[in-house]
């Protein structure tokens, strides 16, 4: 395709994006579709301009939060970072975001791209563009109705690892990411991140959920890799170690899973920057990172914080329950089963709710409110009120728990509904 033709299509794509934004749509699918159709090499051609290449972040839990952190840490290093901020978790969304960012000649004024992709799209993407860096967070039970089985999901990430050219960063605490099978046929150097032994009991792998078996000892093959380790996290202060140096710093992030993701972001930033790393700038940026929306953000209503905690799968839910103290706090749980949440409710039975036994649960809501209430009944947790309708439930929850902090555990689409309701009562950060 000649240059003029490409310019015309780019211009056209920009126009379509603007038009679809004006119509009130999210603006990401349609222009992406048109460009993919008429200029299939657009994605590859545009991203290959980046002198630091493409970072691909995938895994079951923590993609959005980790991507946000990686972007902020790389920006602290003076890099101009392109990212799929709207969380359009698929290639078409990336194309749409790129159209927005390129100039009429197709130049992309960035140094590096940091892209969040779910496992299936990560495979699809990597067959078109080889990532320079890939970061694999975990392979957990989630969205099983989409991918089938977790071993199949691990295989998807393995095929992305094979196509990675610069460096592969993996969570060494996930047995599916540190096996000989996973490292087989990879050519890029491997780096690891993880948590100390002392913290590791908070992260039992899915396989050990029922048997109480100890964490399988780390394979010897890990000892040779550059590792970034979260040593401890207490009272909002975290200690990280890597290459024989130790760094202790305060964080705005809450929840052990967010700190684990921060460890991943540090490991990746170190891999990208190598000897050019501005360590102080990275650590300063890290201490200022805030959670992504709906991932532990506080919204103030009537002078009391309402904390939204996104829960998508058993490990995430268990970690959240372990991270937040329920005392002196009213708890609500909202469970939907829309496509984005996963239709199967079995996962609720892989979460233990014992930590809520003293306080009970003030409100249970969502399409599958009664599945959740039933789950709590079998852990003998008091359920004070059940209301499937989210706006009625939220009103009842706020009215009956006026003068104390509140926390809402919610699935993805329940979070979107509740956030919308809350935005009428308080100022909520706008997210495209």
């Amino acid at each position, binding site marked *: 395709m000649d240059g003029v033709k490409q310019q015309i299509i780019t211009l056209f794509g920009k126009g379509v994006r603007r038009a679809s934004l004006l119509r009130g749509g999210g603006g990401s699918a349609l222009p992406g579709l048109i460009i993919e159709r008429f200029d299939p090499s657009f994605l590859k051609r545009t991203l290959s301009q980046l002198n630091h290449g493409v970072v691909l972040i995938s895994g079951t839990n923590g993609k959005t939060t980790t991507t946000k952190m990686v972007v902020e840490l790389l920006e602290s290093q003076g890099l101009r970072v392109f990212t799929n901020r709207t969380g359009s978790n698929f290639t078409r969304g990336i194309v749409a975001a790129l159209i927005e960012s390129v100039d009429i000649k197709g130049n992309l004024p960035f140094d590096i791209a940091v892209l969040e992709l779910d496992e299936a799209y990560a495979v699809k993407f990597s067959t078109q563009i080889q990532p320079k860096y890939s970061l694999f967070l975990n392979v957990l*039970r989630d969205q*099983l*109705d989409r991918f*089938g*089985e*977790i*071993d199949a999901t691990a295989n998807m990430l393995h095929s992305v690892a094979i196509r990675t050219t610069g460096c592969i960063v993996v969570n060494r605490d996930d047995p599916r990411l540190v096996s000989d099978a996973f490292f087989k046929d990879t050519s890029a150097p491997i780096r690891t991140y993880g948590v100390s032994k002392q913290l590791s009991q908070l992260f039992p792998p899915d*396989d*050990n*959920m*029922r*048997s109480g*078996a100890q964490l399988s000892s780390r394979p010897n093959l890990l000892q040779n890799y550059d590792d970034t380790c979260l040593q401890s996290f207490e009272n909002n202060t975290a200690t990280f170690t890597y290459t024989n140096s130790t760094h202790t710093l305060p964080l705005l992030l809450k929840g052990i899973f967010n700190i684990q993701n921060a460890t991943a972001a540090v490991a990746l930033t170190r891999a990208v920057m190598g000897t050019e790393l501005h360590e102080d700038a990275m650590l300063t940026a890290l201490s200022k990172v805030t959670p992504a929306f709906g991932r532990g953000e506080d919204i103030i209503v009537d002078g009391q914080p309402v904390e939204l905690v996104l829960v998508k799968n058993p490990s995430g839910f268990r970690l959240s329950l372990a991270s937040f103290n329920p005392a002196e706090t009213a708890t609500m749980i909202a469970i939907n*089963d829309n496509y984005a949440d996963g*239709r*199967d*409710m*079995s*996962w*609720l*039975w*892989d979460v233990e709710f014992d930590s809520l036994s003293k306080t009970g649960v003030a409100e249970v809501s969502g*399409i*599958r409110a*009664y*599945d959740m*209430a*039933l*789950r709590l*009944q*079998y*852990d*003998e947790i008091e*359920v004070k009120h*059940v209301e*499937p309708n989210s706006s009625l439930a939220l009103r009842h929850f706020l009215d009956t728990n006026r003068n104390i902090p509140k926390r809402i555990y919610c699935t993805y689409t329940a979070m979107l509904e509740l956030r919308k309701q809350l935005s009428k009562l308080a100022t909520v950060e706008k997210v495209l």
Partner: protein
Amino acid sequence: MNQQQTIRLLQLYPHDMNIYGDWGNTLTLKRRLEWHGYHVELLDYNPGDVLPEGIDLIVGGGGQDSGQDKIQADLLKIGPTLKKLATSGVPMLMICGMYQLFGRFFKTRDGRVIEGIGLFDLETHGGNERMIGNIVTKSDLFGKIVGYENHSGITTLGPNVTPLGRVYRGAGNNGKDATEGAIYNNVIGTYLHGSLLPKNPLIADWLIEKAVDRKYDEFIPTVIEDRFAQEARRIAASRPR
């Protein structure tokens, strides 16, 4: 109620075969037994363990292919004992992967034959499509059964086994003959997750009754508040596949 009355509940391969909320079934049996006034001794059996004596009730779950590979040899070893227990009336619930391995064999898509223990007269062939979604079946014993299926195995029942239910909505054993699950003596096999027992308390209490009755000659149930279960069943049956 005599608190001394104890039921020994065994989880079969909880380490390798426990995907999709199988704990929900174990927990439901444990709690309902307790609510009915019995003491529960919960035991785990994993490959290489010694099978405990005096087992009253057995549950087994679904697993991934890798999990099935890990337990298969061990299962064949204890197969004869499990069959004897079944003949003597011990109730069992086998979900998905364990349901398949309680049949005669599972033939994978690439032609590999994984031998089962043949407690159920059925065979399973690996299929190309996953049968996924909310499912409702109807059973003579239990009325409407609601759950969630997620499998690619295509199971065909032989003449010596009865289906657990007729598919009302969903795929079931094979997506063709409208059968779902199997029942033989007091052993139930099914593809239904969800988890199965919390939303189908009649099945849970049937298994409990068989276990208690066999051991103590009589089962005195108590009334359990199942309102949440009734509502959850109603909603589940109305949701998109």
